[in-house]
């Protein structure tokens, strides 16, 4: 009984490279990767008890943070040992104050954008962006008037 090099074992996440985009959570067929939203942080939790070792998360990660291994020894008698957590600090929207995205994702996006970009827009959550955009269009068409606070 031996293991070949083609064997699909446990996929491991590199916490340095992970930006918290959540693609691996969307693509997991079994629901082994979960998102837990707390007050000021997001926890990306991997539950090996439900994992089906299909390696879809390995294929999809845009930062190439997940790598496949050939590990297969996972037996334990303690339920908590079956989880691996990666904790991300989150950012609050500068308009409404709601938590909406991990901090690392904003830093990562900033590094990829050209320097002429208006970086203040990155701190606004999608709902507020929609409302601000709609207000600007309405003002330019004369339907609404600017509300000077």
């Amino acid at each position, binding site marked *: *009984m031996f293991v070949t090099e083609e064997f699909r074992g446990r996929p491991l996440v590199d916490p340095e490279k992970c930006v*918290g985009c959540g693609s691996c959570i969307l693509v997991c067929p079994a629901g082994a990767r979960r998102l837990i939203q707390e007050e000021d942080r997001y926890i990306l939790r991997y539950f090996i008890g439900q994992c089906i070792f299909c390696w879809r998360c390995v294929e999809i990660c845009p930062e190439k943070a997940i790598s496949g291994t050939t590990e297969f020894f996972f*037996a334990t008698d303690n339920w908590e040992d079956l989880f691996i957590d990666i904790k991300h600090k989150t950012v609050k929207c500068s308009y409404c104050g709601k938590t909406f995205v991990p901090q690392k994702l904003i830093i990562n996006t900033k590094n990829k954008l050209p320097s002429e970009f208006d970086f203040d827009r990155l701190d606004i959550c999608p709902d507020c962006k929609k409302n601000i955009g709609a207000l600007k269009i309405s003002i330019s068409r004369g339907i609404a008037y600017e509300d000077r606070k």
Partner: protein
Amino acid sequence: MRTENNKTKSLQKQCNIFHVNTGSCNGCDIEVLDAITIWSAENVEVKFVEPQNAHVAIITGPMTVKAFKFVLEAIKKMPMRLIIAVGACAVGGGIWRSSYSTLGGFHEALKLLNEQGIKIDKVVYVPGCPVRPESVIRGFKILFNEERPSIKYQSFEA
């Protein structure tokens, strides 16, 4: 654990197993059979028996609602309640976790068993889909306190 150390030593030479399939796809059950064949090569005598004479119960499958009553009755009859939950389905429900017809693995059934006052001595969880035979054997050794668990909880700040 109810047994003392010298009792577990004698178990290692002869193991009576009660196997119950609570609706699995049979992938893990065949690998359990492979594991037993390897173990027989190491001079451990393994027999499949009824719950009254069993030392260990192997559970596969996501614990369907219909099969739960068998498991309940069978575990009640076991003299020493050592349980190994094998496979992704038995540990956490696998891909069937949120279905109207399954409870979601042995861990969820444990809560119901505790409500009925049935005490389990020790449970070992062996994930995998399907589980590799070597991993099942490591699970047995952890059950008999011969080895430490293979994984631990990890938490990282990104």
